[in-house]
Each structure stands twice: as structure tokens, then as C-alpha cells.
């Protein structure tokens, strides 16, 4: 329960960061934090039903659930792809306007 509350806290930290931080790199940090919160949640919960890594052979014991682990491999990769793209776009924006501040950029782009 404590562990899950901490993960929840991590997730909310990321979301609040995404909302309140105006720096684009910080927004990318926030996305990465939210993503890792979900990864932690899946793996933590999936490990509750066993005491042994899902590798056949070796010591006796009950496996943890391999399904969330396999899913989270995909989620981690997707997360880093999103970060990479977000930062590349932020880099291009900085080259043009010389700032990473979201509100400032919105004003500079100046679309009505």
C-alpha cells in the first residue's frame, strides 16, 4: 500500500510538473517521470504473485507474472522515443526563438 501510494505520488508529481513547469525540457522530464511511474506500478504489482524471475530452470519457486514485464519493455521504449522527439523539437524551437519557455514561445509564435 505504501509502495503504491509512493508510485501514485510519483505520477502526480509528473503531471503537476507537466502542467506548471514552463520550460520545454522540464516538460519532457515530466513525461518521462509519468511514464516510469506506470512502469514501476505494473512491475511492482505483477511481482506480487511469485518469488522467482520468469526464467525456466534453476531454483525452485513460483514465477512472477511475465506479462506486465513484457508489456513494460514496450512502454519504456515508447517513453524514450517520445522524449527524443520532444527534445529535438524543443531544440529546433530554441534555435529559432532563443527560449525554452512555453508561454513565451506561444506569444512569440503569435498566432491568434
Amino acid at each position: 500500500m505504501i509502495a503504491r501510494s509512493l508510485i501514485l505520488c510519483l505520477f502526480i508529481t509528473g503531471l503537476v510538473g507537466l502542467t506548471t513547469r514552463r520550460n520545454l525540457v522540464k516538460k519532457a522530464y515530466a513525461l518521462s517521470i509519468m511514464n516510469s511511474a506506470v512502469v514501476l506500478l505494473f512491475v511492482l504489482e505483477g511481482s506480487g504473485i511469485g518469488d522467482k524471475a520468469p526464467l525456466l530452470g534453476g531454483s525452485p519457486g513460483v514465477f512472477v507474472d511475465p506479462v506486465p514485464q513484457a508489456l513494460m519493455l514496450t512502454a519504456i521504449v515508447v517513453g524514450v522515443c517520445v522524449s527524443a522527439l520532444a527534445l529535438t523539437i524543443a531544440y529546433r524551437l530554441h534555435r529559432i526563438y532563443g527560449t525554452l519557455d512555453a508561454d513565451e514561445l506561444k506569444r512569440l509564435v503569435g498566432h491568434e
Partner: protein
Amino acid sequence: MNDAELALVPIFLPLVGAAMALVAKSLSEGRASRILETSGAVVGLALPWAALAGLLPAVMAGGVSFTVSGWAPAIGIAERFDGLAWLVDALGFAGAGAAYLYSRGNGPKGPVFTAIFLVQTSALAATASTADLFNLFVCLEVLGLSSYVLVASSQKPGAFLAAFSYLTVSSAAMVFFLIGLFGLYRLTGSLSYEGIEAGLSALADGGGATASLSSACIVAAIAIRVAVMPVYGWLPDAHAMAPHAVSAVLSGVLIKTPLFALGRLLGFLPTGHQAMALVGTAGVVTALVAVIVALSQKDAKRLLAYHSISQVGYIVAAWGLGTAEGLNAAYMHALFHALFKGLLFLSVGTVTDAAGNRNVYTLRNATAALRLSGDRRLTVAAAYAVGALSICAIPPFNGFASKNAIAYLFKGGWEYWALFAAGVCTIASFMKLSMIYLPPRRPVAGPDEATAETQIAVAAYRISLSMKTAMLALALLCIATGLFYGKLNGFAATLLGTAPKVGAGTLYGSSELAKTGISLVLGAALFLFAVSKPGKAAAALVRSRPRSYAGLVLAFVSGLAALGARLVLFP
């Protein structure tokens, strides 16, 4: 190759095309590389039609359900290729094909663009037929990632910011999707729609609040892609700033495919019907609000983007009924919207590029700009006219039939009148946009800076044959689908397992025509107000409303909370 394997071919062929384009990129010789890239595009966009033709008998017989590579349903990835998937695939390949053809004339060019465009097309097909929650997540991510890249590929400063907002908001939403998936997986131990349905119905309370909130997370995350109220804020910038060909696909195809995929999922969830109804109501509101905002815009492509939101509102409204007839009407309008909105984005994009001006209030005499850019017969202007008449629901163009079919579903309710008002605003707004073809108000006094700039833009711009071909094809399709609405609707209804309720005869009845006449008159009056001084002031007021980045996230979170509250408190 059996049907189950054939059903995956429309997903794989664009990927093969993308691989060919990537190989083409790594080749250094110009000619061989270009040939390989073009054949990649043919493999990815034309060959799937053959696969779709081959699948038609199986689809007519009720569709194919299978797991990829034939693994056990408990752990494999479930797919369902039925009439809906077939129709959504057809919509996607039609829209993508025309837009790609246009991009050969006007860019963006290069093998990387081709590859990512094909990846996006493949993801569209994959989204249409998936019946597995995690696979849906992956499909939506592929769809998202490729569209962020495509939006940014216009290399305009505004496009970068739009792509960034779109990327962060929808990625954050996808994290909520994963939490929803977590909730459902923990309750049911299954990822396939059928498994989730069976698992939830085996539980005493059907999953209770956890299941409802998990569904809400998933629905909200997908609603952001569909751009329904209140989570549409990312769309206008992204669609207005993207390259024209990409705008056409984004507006025409990309915002609808997730909607139909969501419909498939909600059919399996216990609270699915309530969620659909709520999203549908939001759709009606969207249709009206977005078109009012559209009326106030001064940037031509941004105006079109708001119309996309409004038209998707119509589609969502009909879809939200949750009936086969509603789905049928929603699909027909989605298809027609893909055709006419694609056409509008391409033609308006071409005109504004030719004139070097996107401001509806100042751009005049666009025909002259078209002539100077090599369009002597004014094909582009004619194509624009077809698109505008279609979206304004003027008979016999296709928008008339599909919009009235949707309105017919709501006869007698408040939704009917909301949609009617939206139709009036649409007419007014397109009258305003059409002003760009009017002759200049006063002769240009001298070569001031702006005109000189315009002249340069005009001189450098050429409208190529492939651009005209793409627009002509879409224009002809708009007319043909309008004329043969009855047959087409019957075909779609058969594939969706229903019978067409409203015949073409009813749609062309005297009351419908009278309604169109009244809308035209009201629309003209509204148009006159919109271009008057107080109207312009009101428009400026609407345009200057505060739109911050935090607002996008807040809108998503409040939409999610509202949906969650609805599902938990009134199951």
C-alpha cells in the same frame, strides 16, 4: 494464405513500402533511389486495395476473428477484421493515397517523409482491426509519433510548437491509457476485448468503480485523438501548421480511425454505452462550439481546422447513439468528410501558397494568383467550390446526404437544432472563406512592401500536375458519392450488419430542401454580420481568448474527471 493472414496484409504492405523508402534513402544514386521510393509508395498505398478486395467475401460473410500468428487467445493478440475494419481501411487508404499524390507536387518530399507517411498509414489499418487493448496502445503510439513528425516536417516555427503541444498532451494521455489498462488487466487478467468482457462479467459487481474509472481513463485518452470537447485544443495549431498534404490526412482520416476503434472497444465494456452517450453529447456541443470559433478565424487553414473539429462533432454525435444506424451514419459522414475536407485543405493550401497570404480578411483576387502559378483553367478554384458546397450540405454534393442522415437520427431532440445551427454557421463561415476569390476592393496604389512580397511568392510557386490530379480526383469523388449516396450507403449498411433506414428519397424530400434553403438564408445573414464591424470585433474577441499550454492538460484532466464521475455515480 488464409483469411486471418490476409487480414494483416493491409497493415504490412505500407510497412514494406516504408522499408523500401528507407533502403532508398540509404542508396546514394539519385535515379535508383527515386524509383525505389516511388515503388515503395505504390506497394504501400495501392497494393492494399487488392488485399481489401480479396477480403471482401470474408467480410460479407461476417468478418474474421483471429489471433496474430494463431497463438492461444488467452495470451496472443486478438484481431477482428469485420465490415467496420474494412470500411475504415478503405477510408484511410483513399485519404492517404490522394494526399500522397498531392505531396509529390507540393512536398514535403524525400524518402524519410515517404517512410513515415507509410508508417502512419499502416498504423491506421492496424488501429482499425485490433481487438486487444495493449495492441491498441501500440497502434495509437505509432499513429501519434508519426503524426508529430509529419506536423513538424513543414519546418515552420509554428509547426514545431504545435507538434510539441500535441506530443506532450497526447503522450500524457497515453500514460492514463496505460493506467486504465492496468486496472482492467488486474481485474480480468486479460488484454483482449473479449477476455476483458468475460472477466468483468464474472466479477460480482462487474468490476465496480475500478472498472468504470479504468474505462474512463482509456476513453479520455482516445478522445484526445478524436479532438472532441473539451480536449480539442491541440488540433487547430497542428492541422493549420502541418504541410497541406499532411493536414488533409490528419483532418480527413487520422481523427476518425481512433473513434471507430474506441467504438469497437466500448462494445465490450459494461459501462461502454454510458461512455458512448456522454462522448456523443460532447460531440453535439463540439459541432456547434467549434464552428462558432471557426467563423471568427482569419487564418484560412486554421478556419478549416476548426471546421474539422466541428464536423467530427457530427460524426461523434451519431456514433454516440451506439446503434448500428448511428454507426452507419457516422461512417458515411466520416468518409465524405475525409473526401471534402481533404479537398478543402489541398485547394485552400494551394491558393494561399500561390498568393503568399493566408489571411481571409486581406487575401483577395485569388484567381489571379492561381493563373499566375500555372493553373489557367482554375481547376483549383473549381475543386474548392466542390469542397465548400459539400461541407455546406448543398445538394447534390455528398455532405448534404450524410449530414441530413445524421440530423434525421436526432429528429425531435435538442441535438437536431444544435446541429442545424452548426450547419448555418458552416455556411456563413464558408461564405467568408470564399471571399478570397472576390476581386480586390480597390486597385493597389503602389508597390508597397506587402505586394512586392506577394509577387515574389507568386512567381516562385508552380501548381504541378500531380497536385491538380489529386484535387480533381477528390472533387469527382465528392460529386460521385453525393449522386450515388443510396447505393454507397446500402453497401456500408450491409457491411455494418444493418439495413439503411433512410433512403435517398427521404433525404431529397421537400422538407429537407426547404431546410437547406432556410440555412442558406440564415447563413448569409450571419455572414453579413461576421464581416461587419461589430462582427469583426466579436471575432477578434473570440480569437484573443487565453489559450495556455496548461489549459490543454487541465482540459484533459477535467474531461477525464467528468467522465469518471458519470460512470461511477450513475452506472
